[in-house]
């Protein structure tokens, strides 16, 4: 009797912890959705229950977002920077991760940790000197400044992820390829890279989400509205526009956050094993 009371108590505690905290996490996203589809009159009537639709849902805010603001341009800008940064990251981090995971003697492990630590150097320390570098290269107010600077934080963690990934591939794979006549480098490109596609995809997704999340560099380097990424365009430009703009604003927030989160979710276990540095076995 006491025993069953205990298990029920434990279950109830667990359910309430999960219920309350999950609501806390997901609420702002639910709120974006509700706001984005409400008619303006309904949205700003203080007598209305904000959770309910008194008038039918509308697409007016989404239309306004795409036809009357530069939101679409910002999405394109973000995609442009994202794709280029992903390509640069793969070109730099995949070979580096392979060298760290395979070809290293004692220096490899140490260098690997060194590279991992640079991931921790925050933009807050670097944005001031980098703003001068960007001006000197005549890249200020250009998306290319972001393409140049973003790999500095995507490469370290990606190289670290790839290192773990390559360590898990048996050495026999390359040995066999080399017996077949490939050089050491040939074995890497022709045999190891093709079977590592899921690892490379992980790095691509990870880098792309980091590009979408970056704020400090973008707000420092980019000044004209047309060149903004979605991450700075929404908070700096849309917010200070029209007071009754919340419907479009929330639509913009939802579109820029939830799809990428769904994509990220497929790879999350890999990122976590990278974050935990092998402290979990």
């Amino acid at each position, binding site marked *: 009797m006491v025993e069953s009371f205990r298990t029920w108590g434990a279950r109830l505690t667990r359910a309430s912890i999960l219920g309350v905290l999950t609501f806390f996490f997901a609420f702002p*996203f639910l709120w974006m959705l509700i706001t984005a589809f409400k008619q303006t009159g309904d949205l700003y009537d203080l007598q209305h229950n904000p959770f309910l639709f008194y008038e039918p849902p509308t697409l007016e805010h989404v239309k306004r977002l795409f036809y009357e603001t530069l939101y679409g341009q910002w999405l394109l800008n973000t995609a442009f920077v994202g794709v280029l940064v992903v390509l640069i990251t793969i070109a730099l981090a995949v070979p580096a991760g392979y060298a760290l995971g395979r070809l290293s003697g004692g220096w490899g492990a140490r260098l690997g940790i060194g590279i991992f630590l640079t991931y921790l150097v925050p933009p807050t320390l670097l944005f001031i000197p980098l703003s001068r570098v960007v001006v000197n290269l005549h890249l200020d107010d250009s998306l290319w400044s972001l393409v140049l600077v973003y790999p500095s934080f995507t490469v370290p963690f990606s190289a670290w992820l790839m290192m773990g990934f390559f360590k898990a591939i048996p050495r026999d794979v390359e040995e066999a390829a080399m017996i077949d006549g490939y050089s050491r480098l040939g074995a890497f490109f022709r045999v190891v890279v093709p079977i590592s596609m899921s690892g490379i995809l992980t790095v691509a997704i990870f880098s792309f989400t980091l590009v979408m999340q970056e704020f400090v560099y973008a707000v420092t380097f980019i000044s004209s509205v047309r060149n903004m990424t979605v991450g700075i365009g929404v908070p700096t430009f849309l917010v200070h526009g029209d007071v009754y703009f919340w419907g479009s604003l929330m639509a913009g927030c939802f579109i820029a956050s939830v799809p990428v989160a769904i994509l990220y979710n497929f790879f999350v276990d890999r990122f*976590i094993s990278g974050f935990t540095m092998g402290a979990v076995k």
Partner: protein
Amino acid sequence: MEASTSVAHPQNSASRAKSRASILDSESWLGWLLIAPAVLYITLLVGLPFLMALYYSVSDTTTGGGSMGFVGLRNFTAVIGTPKFQTALKNTLTFGLISQVLILILSNALALALQRDFPGRRLIRFLILLPWVAPISIGTIAWLWIFDSTYSVLNWILRLTGLVQGQGYMWLGLPHLAMGSIIAVNIWRQLPLATVILLAGYGSIPQDIHDAAAVDGAGFWRHFFQVTLPLILPITLVALLFGLIFTFTDMVIIYNLTRGGPFDTTQVLASLAFYTGIAGGDLAEGAAIALFLFPLLLAVALGFLMIAHRTEVT
């Protein structure tokens, strides 16, 4: 170098003998060749700017460019004396420490609750991860709307329950409420990462250990403090270190929600460095303020080195 390589990998030296002995086959050269571009990139765009930040902090440079005169520690002494800086330092500590303590407690509770499988667990994990994955500058805008002075849904709920009459609270307009609000948003943002890291830690404890404790008749709290907690301590440290670095160096939440206000009561070092260095154009003073975050960075780096060393030994 060559000798040690062939001792370490005799099988490779055998295959190497078969093919041409070229630079593409020499392990040590190839290793450097593959890693050099990444190291060069990071050196140029992290190492070099870092050294520049060090130099700026002892110079009199501004966004206008021109002079780069050496002024010694003048920026630091000038900065430390100002009430603005002292407030920011105090706020940074309040903001960071309260956030971290709450994150540690809540992430443990959440990881424990999520440990066992149940229907819908994957969906819940996805929902929990949302704030971490969604771009933070975008997520904070949803909070700006939730905290809106006129249309705040929080005030509506409070009115409904009869807790407040009239307008309700100015969530971002009053000093203590504003600090509480940005701490809540920071927890919202950082808790997911801590939770999934801890979840990985809990999952790695072998079931036998839990069974043995159950056989010994340990209750929930004794089980947790004497069996589980010591085992997940290293992984908790990892979560804590990430939390510290992401909390203390972040300015996005403050930039978007309060701009440091009201009356600088939510200004932290990271945001002050931005407002001074970029918005105010005083690169030297901004760099000096940002460098006060360096000791923290160093401590976190040492923490990670300790963990790396530990995992290498075991």
